[in-house]
């Protein structure tokens, strides 16, 4: 257990020392989301309608930005080898890295979303659902992304391949995440969408670290 906490602490410390990487993704998210109300103009009905989709698509792309760097630095400097050789199972260490990735990229998006949502004239209830959906959805993005990052590790031009691999897998999160806010606005209630999102998250928590570990072992051989 202490090794997992050590990995999370180390990755957070590294993120603190390389602030630009984390801030780039964050500013990308803020700017992309803020450009839509500016471009479309003050039509609140239209803005309310597109808000969930825009915020979710921006969240997907912002998560993608740092994904290629999830394992690449560790692979380049030999840390990954030492992780494989650690007495702690690699799957647990990988889980630690995914948790750290979520804290540095997913969590800031969740916290910023309600502020950005105000630009789209969303009411308090819709903002609450948006935050809840992102809270369930962003860990899912980190988990699925980690599989892609591990599979494309050490591949030339891996960045493009990574987007091609991961973005289709993000589609369910996008549909249920954006759908939750939309169905709340239309009065249907967001329960169904949120449950499905939670089910996907439970499934990914179980399978993604395992798949990522297998992919990392292949990359190291």
């Amino acid at each position, binding site marked *: 257990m*202490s*090794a997992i906490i*050590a*990995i999370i*602490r*180390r990755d957070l*410390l*590294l993120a603190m*020392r*390389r602030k630009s990487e984390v801030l780039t993704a964050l500013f990308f998210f803020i700017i992309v989301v803020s450009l839509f109300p500016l471009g479309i103009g003050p039509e609140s009905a239209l803005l309310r309608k597109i808000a969930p989709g825009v915020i979710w698509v921006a969240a997907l792309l912002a998560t993608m930005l740092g994904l290629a760097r999830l394992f690449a630095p560790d692979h*380049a*400097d*030999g*840390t990954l*080898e*030492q*992780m*494989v*050789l*650690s*007495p*702690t*199972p690699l799957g647990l*260490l990988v889980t630690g890295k995914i948790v750290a990735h979520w804290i540095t990229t997913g969590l800031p998006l969740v916290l910023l979303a309600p502020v950005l949502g105000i630009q789209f004239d969303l009411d308090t209830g819709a903002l609450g659902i948006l935050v809840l959906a992102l809270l369930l959805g962003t860990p899912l993005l980190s988990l699925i992304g980690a599989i892609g990052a591990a599979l494309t590790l050490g591949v030339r031009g891996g960045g493009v391949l990574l987007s091609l691999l991961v973005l289709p897998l993000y589609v369910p999160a996008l549909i249920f995440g954006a759908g939750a806010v939309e169905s709340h606005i239309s009065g249907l209630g967001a329960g169904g969408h949120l449950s499905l999102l939670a089910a996907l998250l439970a499934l990914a928590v179980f399978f993604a670290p395992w798949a990522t570990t297998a992919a990392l072992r292949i990359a*190291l*051989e």
Partner: protein
Amino acid sequence: MLTATGLSCVRGERRLFAGLDLAVGPGEWLHVQGENGAGKTSLLRILATLSPPAEGEVRWQGEPVEVLAEDYRRAMLFLGHHGAVKEELTPLENLTLAAQLDGFELDEATALQALVRFGLRGREDLAVRFLSAGQKRRVLLARLAVRKAALWILDEPFTALDVKAVAMLSGLIEEHLAAGGMAILTSHQSMPLPNGRVLKI
């Protein structure tokens, strides 16, 4: 005691070595020699369980290493070409984190003592990227000093080290062997250490 029988390694279409046997007992060390590209690093990675051999098996205390898994990994320390040293972290943070990854807690006093021993006094709070290549390797040597492992597998440990650091490392390996440890290393230098054997590939 580490034994390997009938090891062979295939990279792509090429067979690097085949039918390789080796044994290292307590207090002994093995010097793996060979030309560039002969498969020295590949052999070390097989012994460290980082990649599986094409044929043959590696045994630790008589048991296959795949069966021992984490018990073997706890008893073994592998240092590759890349030192697993994070550029953004300080030598002290690097040492503590490597120890936690290896599954033991390292108190600050011991870590500092090891860094001072390898001439990194006053550098312990400086990010590693400000250190020279040789000083980076010295951070790794400090890791050797604090980690308790019966078997050291070192790939080119003398790279980028100055004369003084080479002497320090030789001293460290000698201490390790005297305490009943084992070491397998590759190096293009000759090493005046006791109980050594040479394996040519």
